């Protein structure tokens, strides 16, 4: 049996926000660095680089993941969506509008990760409450400490989808 041979440089193809990007990159390149440095897709941010802050949250084949906890090589052939590629998603648009209305951002660094996390959470849990929303965004750090208004914005969108009563 012939097994494949390990390589330090790998050829990676990703469909990023509908655009196919192909290039050779180091095997150790994180997905978030591939997006920013190779594909110039800058919507998702890099901060802690060890999976605790949530700033680099992206969608991989429709599910959210940490861009710093995935190698580009691991997801070769996958569909990657970032906040800028989801502009046509009606629910994301509602979340963005609610964030603006509630002043749910100050510097905006955490916002792309917050939006993608909130989007998946509301899609999976149509019926929710503020305590669950706080748990859902507990993996996304806002260093301007704007959590209250972020929770309010997400709760408003959740409420608008299923009627009033998000406590």
């Amino acid at each position, binding site marked *: 049996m012939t097994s*494949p041979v390990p390589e330090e440089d790998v050829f990676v193809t990703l469909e990023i926000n509908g655009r196919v990007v192909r290039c050779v990159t180091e*095997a*150790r390149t994180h997905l978030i660095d591939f997006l920013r440095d190779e594909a110039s897709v800058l919507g998702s941010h890099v901060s802690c680089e*060890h999976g605790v802050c949530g700033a680099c949250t992206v969608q991989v084949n429709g*599910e*959210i*993941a940490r861009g710093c906890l*995935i190698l580009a090589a691991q997801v070769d052939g996958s569909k990657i969506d970032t906040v800028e590629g989801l502009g046509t998603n009606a629910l994301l648009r509602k979340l963005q509008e609610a964030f603006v209305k509630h002043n749910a951002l100050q510097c905006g660094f955490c916002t792309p990760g917050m939006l993608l996390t909130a989007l998946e959470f509301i899609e999976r849990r149509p019926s929710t409450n503020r305590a669950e929303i706080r748990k859902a965004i*507990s*993996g996304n750090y806002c260093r301007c400490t704007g959590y209250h208004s972020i929770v309010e914005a997400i709760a408003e969108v959740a409420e608008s989808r299923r009627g009033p009563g998000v406590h």
Partner: protein
Amino acid sequence: MKSSPFAYVRAQSVTEAIDLLERHGDDGRLLAGGQSLLPMLAYRMSSPSTLIDIGRINELRFIEQDDGVIRIGALTRHADLETNNLIANQLPLIARAVQNIAHSAIRNRGTIGGSLALADPAAQLPACMIALDATIVTCGRLGERRIEADAFFRGTYETALSNKELLTCVEVPLAAAGTRVHFAQLSRRHGDFAIVGLAGIRSPGPKLVDPLRLVYFGCGHRAARATQTEALLRAQNSSSRAAILDSLSHDLHPTTDLNATAEMRLHLAAVLAERALGELFS
């Protein structure tokens, strides 16, 4: 922080993974979901020369019921466990534990096999496997090995797995009707590592010989049963705080870190034991 350079190779099957481990296992590491390994690489706590990616071996992603056991493939993701009906109905301990693992973005990628093979002392699933008396199934060039969960975990990041073997699945025996489970962990924020956690199970049976298991995690170098405390509480199902603390001080060997002193951990372990009694014996 960036990892040291390494070579990457993707295994397409269990057979191929074993072959790659034979060739590169000495200085290589398996990559499953990567949710713990990638931070360790970034911190350079680990600098393998080769990563063998097993993440796409779909034959290892399953949850099935089979002759008195539930078999869970190593590459089953935490998010799969969270939404699976068999797990929700038959293994509620796991269903509850999984909700405490990090955050949704991490549960979408992290795998049960990865968590068990890493054996982080603060991880939830090793404690659940010991509480549920699960069997860990591994595979290498010489074939399959079946290891009791309690013997599989040896210490911080140490297991019975050799560097030429792959963890393929776990087998969890179905609990008898009337079995009660309890899961709790204390951490500063939801999704953080446990300062102390407890997975408890009590099966129905004659008084005084009730199988009772209390497995603590985040409270020593590995998830471990508190056997003296089990015996104490099995006999009288309630006890004074002082008696529980005394038996836990024999069972557990907590350490001090930035989150808590060893003494505080022991205190919290006693608090969790008292809370568990209500649910396990009610």
